[in-house]
């Protein structure tokens, strides 16, 4: 049992971000950053660089999500910390919030009301996730962190790299720290690469699952949620059970 901002939480709900709560992925954020980080000439060069790296990124994605993260974040090399923070805020405001599934907002609020502390566990960069978490009122998140030298991104990621099994490990450590039982916790993710993360939790839910996760969810009889863009006419019942 924990208390945050007046809310009492009996357990936790861990959410993946890209593809689960928002309909964008890591490539979007990278492309946005590169397209906005410099003057026009530099932007074009950055996008061209990213385009050239796409086959490699695709291969990395097919092989190991961790590799993808490493390859993707390398592109940020040389950008200053404060510039990334500003761009993170901007990206969150202009893109992420617009691509947030409206039904996911209801789910987050419902789970919060049901006593589940919301926690984001994502491979996205921390300068974006922190801005989003602030807007959602989420106090805790795990995101990938760039290493900086003299306030400039080195292009390397700091350990732990939040991907695959590392997500599960982070959840286990967090639960141990907070005295939570993982079997009481809920987990939401969209990708087969999140299988270790989902299986670590007592209540895994496949959200807009890819083909392989869908098959796994059906095999293991997990709930399957599909978020659409449409918003409900009105919110569901409040937690006291009365309208």
């Amino acid at each position: 049992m924990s208390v945050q901002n007046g809310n009492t939480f009996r357990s936790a709900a861990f959410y993946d971000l890209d593809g689960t709560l928002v309909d964008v992925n890591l490539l979007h954020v990278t492309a946005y950053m590169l397209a906005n980080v410099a003057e026009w000439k530099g932007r074009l060069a950055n996008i061209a660089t990213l385009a050239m790296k796409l086959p490699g990124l695709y291969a990395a994605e097919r092989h190991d999500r961790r590799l993808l993260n490493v390859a993707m974040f390398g592109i940020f090399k040389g950008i200053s910390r404060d510039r990334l923070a500003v761009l993170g805020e901007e990206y969150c405001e202009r893109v992420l919030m617009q691509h947030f599934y409206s039904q996911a907002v209801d789910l987050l609020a419902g789970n919060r009301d049901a006593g589940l502390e919301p926690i984001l566990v994502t491979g996205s960069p921390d300068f974006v996730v922190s801005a989003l978490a602030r807007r959602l009122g989420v106090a805790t998140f795990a995101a990938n962190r760039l290493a900086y030298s003299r306030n400039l991104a080195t292009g390397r990621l700091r350990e732990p790299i939040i991907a695959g099994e590392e997500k599960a490990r982070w959840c286990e450590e967090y639960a141990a720290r907070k005295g939570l039982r993982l079997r009481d916790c809920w987990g939401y993710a969209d990708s087969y690469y999140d299988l270790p993360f989902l299986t670590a939790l007592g209540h895994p839910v496949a959200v807009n699952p890819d083909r392989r996760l869908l098959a796994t969810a059906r095999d293991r009889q997990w709930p399957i949620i599909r978020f659409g863009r449409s918003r409900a006419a009105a919110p569901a019942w409040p937690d006291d059970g009365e309208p």
Partner: protein
Amino acid sequence: MAQAERKLKELKTAHLKHDIGARRDLVVTLNTRSQARLISYGDDFLVAKLPPGTRVIYPPPPLEPLPDPDVAIRYALLHPENADPLFAQLNPNMRVTIAIDDISLPLPPMQRPDMRERMLNIVLQTLADYGVDDVHLIVATSLHRRMTEDEIRRMVGERAFKAFWPDRLYNFDAENRAEVVMLGKTDHGEEVWLSRRAAESDLLIYLNINLVPMDGGHKSVAVGLAPYQSLRHHHNPATMRDSRSYMDPTRSGLHRSADRMGKIVNRNVNVFTIESAINNRMYGGLLDFLHKNEDRFSDWDHARLSTFKWTLRNLSDGMRREMLRRYAAPYGMTGVWAGETEAVHSKALARVFQQYAVPVKGQSDILIVGVPYICPYNVNSIMNPVLVQCTGLGYLFNMYRNKPLVRAGGTLIICHPLRDEFHPEHHPSYVEFFHRCLAETTDSVELEKSFEAEFARNPTYVHMYRYGNAYHGVHPFYMWYWGEPGRQHVGRIIAAGCEEPEVAARMGWEPADTLDQAIAMATAELGRSASITYLHLPPLVIADVE
């Protein structure tokens, strides 16, 4: 017009050609020369030789269907019970809501045109003739899963679908607080909630199909268009225990509660009920042998049975399920009535009992039932263990009036493979209910106290109910409560042909590999003189036990 007049005249004078004498052979006592009996067994059928002396209760033959259902519907709308004719209640400025029974009946789904389509088209034509434009069609799902677009199209027909879907033809959403309103409380303190659109309409028309006597009446509106806040007052262990049986509304706590609520609804809303009854022609054509007494099987019947069994045996699980799902029953309409809810329902009930009731003398020590591949809650889905429990212990055990077919403390043998299979998109909360809640307790009162509220409010299940096609989070609890009178009454439940013994054990049942073994287990305790009754399904039968 002349032809319509003539048809109306024919209808008035027509009487159902059902031969009461045909019921003499509906209770059969087997001897050593009797043929093996056909027993529903999930996606398959068992063909089992039952011990000599076993009493087999067969369903009555199907009543003769009405010659022209459309004419009968028009007649009912023009000559309603305790109400003005529909046309006399209409004016162009009024707001009308039509609520329709959902996919949970009839079972299996009927051949097209569905009776709801027939009733709906005639009602919509009448409304159009009188200039009523503000019309909404609501599928009265209550806490059932939302019907898919294709399912709704099949049920209401192309004409209504094209004109109303999706803005004015939709599923009821019990979790949308803007869509429900509280009408008051009964003298028992039961809160009566209803669809806001229905409650704020000048006229609410309910289109019903009575498959069994449990359906229809006040239950249609007061349950079908109500949220959890209303249902929790009667879908609970105490009310279920007070129901003997669900098929006898006069002795059912569930129906008494729904009646109390329905009276409040009818005081606040102008309800025009249209109820219809169907015969029990579940299987026709090449499968009509399923209705027959096995001792009267012809060579052609035996050949068809062998072919049917061979086909089922050789198909993959998925193909077999799909083949059975695609089957549509050739039900015929045996009556239709319109007007004030209670007057209409009493007429419909009489016709339904005329179809199903079979007089039976005395109870037995052992009752055998076969759970088929379908129940009201797994149409186009999977029959999971909780639903097997609901069908066997809830529905089939309750197919009686007066006294149960099995004596108090007797043994119920339920034939079903009982696999740990669930449909993750239709029954997500069932999985947790089965693996988490039933692992802790099978006691309904304890389940209600410890888990019901949590499941009813669970945001993931609420989301899947509202935006997906999932049954409400609380639904598995209701299915479990449904078996409560049976659980209280019998001493022992044996799952015959159980493929996964741990599934039976989880529900507090004893597994048996075969029906023979199950009978041996039951008679070992009760002695060789134990009396056995087999309730032969399909189709459906209700035993009037003396």
